């Protein structure tokens, strides 16, 4: 059986952590997008109140 050198192991481990970090960053980006949309909607509601009254 072919032996896998240590450096390959380390780079694979690093790549796995990079992937997991990417997923967590992705979640944060998506949550921020929802927060931005909700804030914009509240601003619209606020503006309607000011204009209509």
């Amino acid at each position, binding site marked *: 059986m072919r032996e896998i050198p240590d450096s390959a192991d380390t780079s694979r481990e690093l790549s796995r952590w990079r992937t997991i970090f*990417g*997923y967590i*960053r*992705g*979640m944060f*980006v*998506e*949550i921020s*997008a*929802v*927060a931005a*949309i*909700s804030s*914009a*909607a*509240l601003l*619209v*509601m*606020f503006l*309607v*109140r000011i204009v*209509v*009254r």
Partner: protein
Amino acid sequence: MILKPSREDIKLIGWAIGRVILGVGLIMAVPLAVSLVCSEWNVALDFIIGMLACVVFWLVTESFCRTKKDLKWSHGLVVASGGWILAMIFGAIPHYLSGHFRSFLDACFDLMSGYTTTGLYLLQDLDHCSHGLNMWRHLLTYAGGQGIIVIALTFLFAGTAGAFKIYVSEGKEEKLLPNVINTARAIWMISLSYLVVGSAFLWLALLREGMPAGRGFLHAIWLFMGAWSTGGFAPQSLNLLYYHSLAVELITLVIMVIGSFNFALHYAVWTGKTKEIYQNIETRSFTLTALFGTLVLSLGFEKLGLFTNLTEFFRKGFYNLISGHTTTGSSTIYSVSFYRDFGFIAMWAVILVMAIGASACSTGGGFKGIRMGILFKYLRGEIRRLASPESAVIAEKIHHIRDIWLDDAMVKGAMFIVICYVFIYFVGGLLGVLYGYDPSVAFFDSVSAGSNSGLSAGLTGPLMPAALKVYYIFAMWAGRLEFISIIALFSFGGALVRGKKGRKR
């Protein structure tokens, strides 16, 4: 299109549907385990009977329908649409045996509502429902949101070249990865990651509200499944109103909006293309239509002097608007409030955003953001063409993962699907009016069923006419599969009849 299906064609379709039904039976193992842990022996027996029925059907199809042929496009379409109908019938067995339904039709209604992530229900006495049955209801929406076919592809179709054809036929056109099995697995990876994170946050929120740990844990999982799959089921008849918790509402709002995003968008953002979320045509389209809906909703409320407090507006108005727009159906008000309190303008704002719906290749329904984007860009191009010299070449493009130039085929395709949706919304509304319901209520519930939203203005219930129940089942099914597979199934049926006549001659 299959003009004269051969015996081999029917065997191939039967074999593939058998695998889908086996998938349904395997999913029943989860509610069975829950009912065993909770000592709900009668409920456990219901699931054992349901699982046995699925396994027997699979064994029959494996014995009589096994063939070496691979699936073609026409087979894929028929497997997807026919598979959903049979999955509904087999999945309804534990529902019906539970004693919570007036008839098997009602049980089938709830099953189709679950699979299609609609959220309308005819179940009686929901507040005293067993844990096992509640787990089954919510698991249905979670599994249906990813796609029953996606489940079967993930676990039961490995190595089948025709798998992609059934996957596309289920209304999911995106290939996240070059291999369709890996695409199905990537969809599950995203969903399961959010399941862990979302349920944990909801559990903490419910514990903070004073709910016992065990009950809170189950409610957290169920609420997550209802929101993420844009199904909108909840374990209590008052839906989100039961919890009276701003934290729960905020968390479910975030989950349902993220759940309504395209899986290809999730995958792009998660793999480093973070700018995609601001550039994608579907997020832009969703933002614009959500803001327009908010504007109309605010005007409606201002006219009536309703929910003038910002927090009240957010919790009672915006939450339900977004719940409709993402086609979730979670609600923080009583059903009748849409008709009794919201008033005409605000009610039709919710109907409008429900009709538009969520993103393509997501768990949501409706026209879809990408089609709204395509039609908007097409109209803009036409206006620019009219305003430009005759020799000018006007071309429009949309951004969805990459830049795509608009062509006539895309516009026609989008237009066709939108017209089909409008047709099923209209027919359902008309049927409701003919049965004597107020037009706003009839159209509200019809659009809700056709767009797989699940909000109700009070029409949907165990006592509604049977013809409307059947029509809503059809509307939920057709809306979820986006018509093409349904048309293929009916064509296949017609071809079967024609084929028999041909042999007699």
